[in-house]
């Protein structure tokens, strides 16, 4: 219904965008995570994409996206340890360009949410551009930034959750908010963990006057 990304070939951009006045507890989100061969923008590439839809704080376990792709660059042993995708597994997969369209469709009409999402978006945009899909137009929210903002909201949040400065990585946050964590990093599982953390944030944010998507983007846009 909403064109959030533009295909230069068939310009479907209707100009309609996500309604930013939607209340955060009923807005559509796609929570996503990617696994990478490494963190270097030039030298590394995407291995897998995991994502799931949320409507407000409701995680739609049945509406998920998960694809492993053949990375453009070589899988390093360092990254293999993290996500447990072996080179031979990855080699059998299609290239990212074949799944990208499906993923973009999955994201249609939703706010993209992720932990340190700017990194994922950077790699994703590179591929979108390469594949000739223009650019990703969806608004995005970084759960790490939302967390930082909540920490800054004084006693309520920090006294409840011992908001002393601690690690901000996904698993640390998961522990802090009692979200169960198990096994290796996997894009879908990590997206799921992120979704569960975001679920709790939505509730807290309302308490601090963050009501609409516009408010949310103001504090969480990467």
């Amino acid at each position, binding site marked *: 219904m909403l064109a959030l990304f533009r295909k230069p070939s068939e310009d479907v951009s209707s100009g309609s965008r996500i309604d930013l006045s939607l209340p955060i507890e009923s807005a559509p989100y796609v929570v996503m995570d990617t696994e990478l061969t490494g963190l270097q923008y030039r030298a590394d590439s995407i291995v897998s994409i995991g994502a*799931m839809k949320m*409507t407000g*704080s*409701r*995680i*739609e*376990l*049945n509406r*998920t996206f998960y694809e492993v792709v053949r990375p453009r660059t070589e899988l390093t042993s360092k990254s293999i340890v993290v996500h447990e995708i072996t080179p031979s597994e990855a080699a059998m997969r299609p290239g990212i360009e074949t799944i990208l369209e499906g993923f973009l469709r999955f994201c249609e009409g939703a706010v993209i949410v992720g932990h340190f999402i700017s990194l994922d978006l950077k790699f994703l945009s590179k591929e979108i551009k390469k594949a000739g899909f223009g650019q990703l137009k969806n608004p995005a929210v970084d759960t790490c930034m939302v967390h930082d903002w909540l920490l800054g909201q004084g006693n309520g949040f920090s006294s409840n959750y011992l908001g002393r400065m601690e690690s901000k990585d996904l698993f640390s946050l998961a522990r802090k908010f*009692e979200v169960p964590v198990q096994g290796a990093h*996997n894009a*879908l*599982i990590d997206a*799921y963990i992120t979704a*569960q953390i975001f*679920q*709790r944030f939505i*509730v*807290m944010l309302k308490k601090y006057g963050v009501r609409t998507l516009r408010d949310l983007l103001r504090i969480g846009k990467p």
Partner: protein
Amino acid sequence: MLIDEVIEFLGSVPPFQFLDGDALKSIAQNISMDFYPKGLVILKQNDPASEHLRIIKKGGVKVFMESESGEEIVIDYRGEGDTFGFLSLIGKDKVRASIMAVDDTICYLLDKEHAVKLMNTYPVFTEYFLKSHLTKYIDRTYSEMHNKSMFFGGSDRILFTSRVADIAIKDIVAVHEDATIQEAAHVMAYHKVSSLVIYDSNNFPVGIVTDRDLREKVVAKGRNVSDPVKNIMSLPLIRVDANDYCFEAVLKMIKHNIHHVLVVRDGILRGVITNHDLMLLQGTSPLSFAKDIENQHSLDGLAPLSDKLNRIIGLLLKEGAKASNITKIISELNDRLVKKVLEIAEKKYGAPPVPYCWIAYGSEGRKEQTFKTDQDNAIIYADPATPEQAEAAKRYFAEFSVFVRDGLVKCGFPPCEANFMASNPQWCQPLSVWKKYFLNWITMPNPEALLKSLILFDFRGLYGTLGLAAELREYLIRNLKDQNLFLAMMASVIMKNRPPLGFFKSFVVEKDGDHKDELNLKIRGIGPLVDIIRFFALESGVHETSSLERLQAMKETHPIVIELGEEIEQAFEFITLLRIHHQLDQMEKKEPLDNFINPSMLSNLEKKSLKESFQLILKIQDAITELYKAGMVAG
């Protein structure tokens, strides 16, 4: 892979665990998950019907309704693995009860369409929900929403809580299908039954013949009684499962316009349930019991009734009555028994020389009796005008009280071991002596005086000239004013009974003896609460004796009650209910009753509530200690 987690979870909780793998998988593929912070109202009574069935993955919720008078009635607490939203899902109109998260709660949500599909495909699914939720709603709705007394009316509810097997498993009277009508009638007359099962040659029941069939199909029609009985039997056979609730039997009787339903268990015919059985069942209600008491005129008639009382309590519990309602009913029925015994005594000994009031104290005085209740009673009589009258009164009440004590023993109230009974001359005194007792205890508090005041100060007039008890209460309140030393000493006594701190971490429970590793709910839980509430009541000059009524009376005046009254009330209700349930279990297993529970047998939610109750008690005890520090040093 996320689905697997859902399947694994659902596979471990009823009713989903009854479903096969494919069904579970199809549920899991249609599930979403939501998070509700503690305190959030998830569903609100009278809102549009819920679109989802919710299964609690983590946390817990409270199900409650608001009565017409705006009072909150807690229907249920649900914990991990439990579900909610079912009734509004099938009810289709609006939400019946509000649901609030009592903890940070995560739920799986199954949308309406799939939930309904499941119900239609798997009867076991629907059945489970109906049994576990619906009856609770019906009971609570009837008894509390419309403020109907549990005591009068509402005996219908028993139909929802008794199983067919409880009343209708008995020998079956049957004949072969080749028997004649006359032979069949003969068998029925011989066994004095109103229905007869007809078997075929394979020993399968094929029909039933009832009095009505004989009347309508034989006598009225002038049919030949040597015809085969199978010509007049009723078909098809309407049956209920022995495990069904009696209510279902009633439904079938109404639906098929019959008065006899076959009872089947494991596919085998086990009995016949009749409308007469159901009528008798409804006779087991508190109301009919109260009538029973009224109709007795001798101790021998009264004595057998006390057994029946315990049965009624069991039924009330199964109906899910609130603890405070149950203890109220027990007390009310016990009061009636006692009054009846007193009436019988008065008849035997003639009118008393001076007016008197029979008082009860201890748990009886607080109207907080459970199953096992010792006698705690006394007599206050009006001050005699002359020495002769004094002598006459003394003689009269001495005999009278012994007769009542023995009568009560006969009716199932064991005598008080510490001899706190009217039959003890110390507790059978004129009003002026009682006043002296109380004044002495208050002004010269020593450990013995304090102990006596803890017991006696919960007195209430039960029978006779209640004005005497009221006057003594006034006197007590007047003389307690500004008696800080007494209050401080009392505070120090009740502070000694601390609930087990760290109960759930280290399981600090009874250290040895028969009840090693168990917790005495009466002494460690109810006791401290009752003591605290009594203390506040004495401090504030409140007339009431029941703990909950005392709280009610102080809720706008006593600083601690203003702040924590509601929590105290909930803790009190909760521990009382645990205790009653425990005793009912024991009673059903024919074990001797006690107050010891094993914490490992409690559900997570129960443990949590108990822990919170203990924390509350400690908090209040600390607050009292703070206020009365000086006095305690003196004590």
